């Protein structure tokens, strides 16, 4: 199998060749390359979102001792595609008293923000769209935009329940941002850099050098805080259908609803990808001898495993009540995160 | 306490106001007059030998010449049961409410009110329980009630959300 760096090199050569033969300046060549890379990432993410929806349904079904979608293709693989087509042709109903602009831009923002985070995720050896030297900070900043989108969704629907749901979501996400950010500081201290690509390289070629071992506490805090960020059970009170009927996305129908839904799944993959990069060694194989399997396969495998773990949480635990949720963020995760930083700093200083 | 003991005790304390119905059932069936109703119920509740703390059910019945309100009381402590009945006149069935003694009587009395038309004076929150708010087709559980052939939908302008 061809290592994609070779493929990337080849594409670069073709594009460079075309642009130089047409006598275009370098900037056009760079822009053309960027456009191609973005198109590739978007294509990958679209497929990934659809895949994850199908996978969630299968995983949950097997946890519950049943089979899940079986009719649409082999084990229902194109079920999600069928659902997406159905949602695309649904009528877009907007409540007459809703604030149209706000109502419209909420799903757009959440989906855009979701996609923007992938600019700095290292998919494999040499496969990163933009290796910003503040890559991690960029991701953390971008993912906090979801709060704005949820508040817009709750407000724009002009509905008591949606507003309640939106505000609860916002409170939850903002509270859990703090331990989330603090939990990755341990990793940054150990690697000494914020660039996503260098963070992967700083974790050595052997799996015992990955940051999950010294940073077990940080990893646990990260996964808990991230599940809360995603509004998934056990932290999914804002979208608890059984209680206040779907929360902030109650008034959305058709493709706009699908946007929220897909954004949640893509966010799940983002969280797992970041966790893989920071704690599980990114695209590196566990032992150097295993690098005949391409790096992007390792990356995908590790990320999907973490996605599976997050799904596992959803189908096992009941949900926390709002005040327990807040208690957990501020009284449990936050002190533990600080503890983690102190211990890591001491460790880095002494060894 | 056995049936005979309960009947004897009630006869002692309430002599002329009660009437014991002869049955071959193991529980005593007692008729009480309307004016001693609340006092009797309080007595059944408070008396330590009787201790009828659990109101099992309360309902109405419609006969040709009277209405009856019956209470089925049980005692979780002594494991005995009693059925108390009150006769009410057919044209003006009114009686006091026992929600002050057993709070569970609330819904039972609401049901009897709307299905039989028995008025429970000083009930804390009289309203429709099982029938719709706009019901004005009589009292369904009375004998000889005939429903109208066609029941129109309630006027939409009245039912504001």
């Amino acid at each position, binding site marked *: 199998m061809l290592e994609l760096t070779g493929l990337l090199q080849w594409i670069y050569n073709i594009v460079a060749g075309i642009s130089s033969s047409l006598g275009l300046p370098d900037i056009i060549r760079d822009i053309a390359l960027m456009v191609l890379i973005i198109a590739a990432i978007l294509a990958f993410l679209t497929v990934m979102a659809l895949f994850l929806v199908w996978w969630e349904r299968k995983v949950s079904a097997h946890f*519950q001792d049943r089979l899940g979608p079986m009719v649409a293709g082999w084990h229902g693989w194109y079920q999600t595609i069928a659902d997406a087509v159905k949602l695309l042709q649904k009528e877009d109903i907007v409540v007459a008293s809703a604030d149209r602009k706000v109502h419209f831009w909420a799903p757009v923002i959440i989906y855009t923000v979701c996609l923007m985070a992938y600019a700095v995720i290292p998919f494999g050896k040499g496969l990163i769209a933009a290796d910003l030297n503040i890559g991690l900070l960029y991701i953390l900043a971008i993912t906090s935009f979801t709060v704005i989108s949820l508040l817009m969704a709750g407000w724009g629907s002009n509905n008591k329940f949606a507003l309640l749901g939106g505000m609860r979501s916002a409170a939850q996400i903002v509270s859990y941002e703090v331990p989330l950010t603090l939990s990755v500081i341990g990793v940054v201290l150990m690697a000494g850099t914020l660039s996503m690509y260098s963070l992967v390289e700083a974790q050595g070629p052997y799996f015992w050098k990955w940051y999950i071992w010294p940073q077990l506490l940080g990893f646990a805090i990260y996964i808990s805080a991230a599940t809360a960020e995603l509004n998934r059970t056990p932290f999914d009170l804002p979208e608890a259908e059984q209680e206040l009927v779907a929360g902030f996305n109650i008034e959305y129908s058709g493709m706009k609803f699908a946007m929220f839904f897909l954004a949640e799944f893509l966010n799940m993959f983002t969280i797992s990808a970041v966790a893989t990069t920071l704690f599980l060694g990114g695209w590196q194989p566990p032992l150097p001898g295993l690098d005949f399997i391409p790096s992007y396969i390792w990356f995908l495998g590790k990320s999907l495993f973490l996605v599976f773990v997050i799904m596992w949480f959803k189908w096992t635990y009941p949900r926390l009540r709002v005040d327990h949720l807040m208690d957990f963020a501020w009284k449990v995760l936050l002190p533990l995160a600080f503890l983690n930083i102190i211990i890591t700093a001491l460790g880095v200083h002494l060894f | 306490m056995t049936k005979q003991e309960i009947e004897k005790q009630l006869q002692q304390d309430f002599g002329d106001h009660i009437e014991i119905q002869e049955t071959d059932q193991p529980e005593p069936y007692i008729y009480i007059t309307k004016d001693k109703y609340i006092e009797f119920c309080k007595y059944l509740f408070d008396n330590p030998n009787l201790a009828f703390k659990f109101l*099992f059910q309360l309902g109405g019945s419609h006969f040709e010449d009277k209405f009856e309100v019956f209470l089925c009381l049980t005692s979780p402590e002594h494991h005995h049961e009693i059925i108390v009945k009150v006769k009410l006149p057919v044209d003006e069935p009114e009686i006091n409410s026992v929600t002050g003694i057993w709070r569970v009587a609330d819904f039972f009395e609401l049901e009897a009110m709307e299905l039989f038309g028995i008025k429970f004076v000083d009930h804390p929150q009289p309203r429709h329980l099982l*029938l719709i708010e706009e019901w004005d087709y009589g009292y369904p559980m009375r004998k000889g009630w005939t429903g109208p052939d066609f029941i129109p939908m309630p006027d939409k302008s009245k039912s*504001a959300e």
Partner: protein
Amino acid sequence: MTDLTKEMQLSEEEFIVNMGPQHPSTHGVLRLLLKMKGEFIEDLIPDVGFLHRSIEKIAENRTYAQFMAFTDRIDYCASMPCNLAWATAVEKLAQIEIPERAQYLRVIMTELNRIASHLIWLGTMSLDLGAFTPFLYAFRERERILDMFEMTCGQRLTYTYMRIGGVSKDVPAEFYQRCKDFTKDFRKKVDDYEAILTYNPIFLSRTKDVAILTIEDGINYGASGPTIRASGHDFDLRKVHPYSSYDKFNFEVPLGKNGDVWDRYIVRIQEMRQCCEIIDQAVEGLPEGPIKAKVPTMFRPKAGEVFARIEAPRGEMGYYIISDGTTKPYRVKIRTGSFSHVQLMRHLCKGWKIADLVAIFGSLDIILPEVDR
């Protein structure tokens, strides 16, 4: 509908939330009007009657045997105990002796249905609390019970299995082994359900010390069955006034200590285990004999009244029948456990949050057809 909201005087910070009648977490069609202050519930008015089918009025136009089919529908999740209640009441009125085999069969079916009903309760309560998986596990076990019922009487939900004087059909030969296999597996499955929920910290934080019901309040509000046993009140009709040969079986009555939501949960879980005990003993000791006493087709009990009650899964179910000597009863009054428990909601929910409302409602195991009849 607007009249009810006038009942609740609102101060400035309070607002009314209307839950239902269609709502995924009220089990059936129940409308709850909540007077809320922020996240806390100040007052609650239950608006019932959406499922009122006037069963009591219908009873006045059906013979005693015909009415048996209607009793199933009073609580369709626990249809056998409903049948049993009616049969017990009528047999008490006419003083009919039931053959022993019929009594044992009635016990087996009632206890199996008690397990099935508690499984529905378990599934829906954990679904409301956000644990999606026990719902499907519970329904998987329930399928096995429904298969056994289908083997016996051909129906999966509303059985009309019992008759005045006995039962309608005898169990086939495969039933015994099926039943024994089921109870053996089921005990392990209950351990599984407990492993997911009982000591889970999230579940505990949502149910421990929530909505504590004292015994005195409970009795005053007419709470019966597992709801009041969770508060520590040792009263089970199967032990205190045994009917249908329950006195021949050895079983414990699980009691709670605090009367909170967790206790109401644990009492029902342990009741499921005790049901297995009873079923095992009944299947072991099933005597030979007729399955129905001889009752005339146009059954005419003598004029009189009767009051009888049994222990149904959701509380005590009782009948008060006035008979005038004809083939049809004069007045039938049905009392179900859920009718009283709905009134208990108002008392229990004051001061708790909406998220707790769902947990409390689940723990009371209310089902609306019982309330509305």
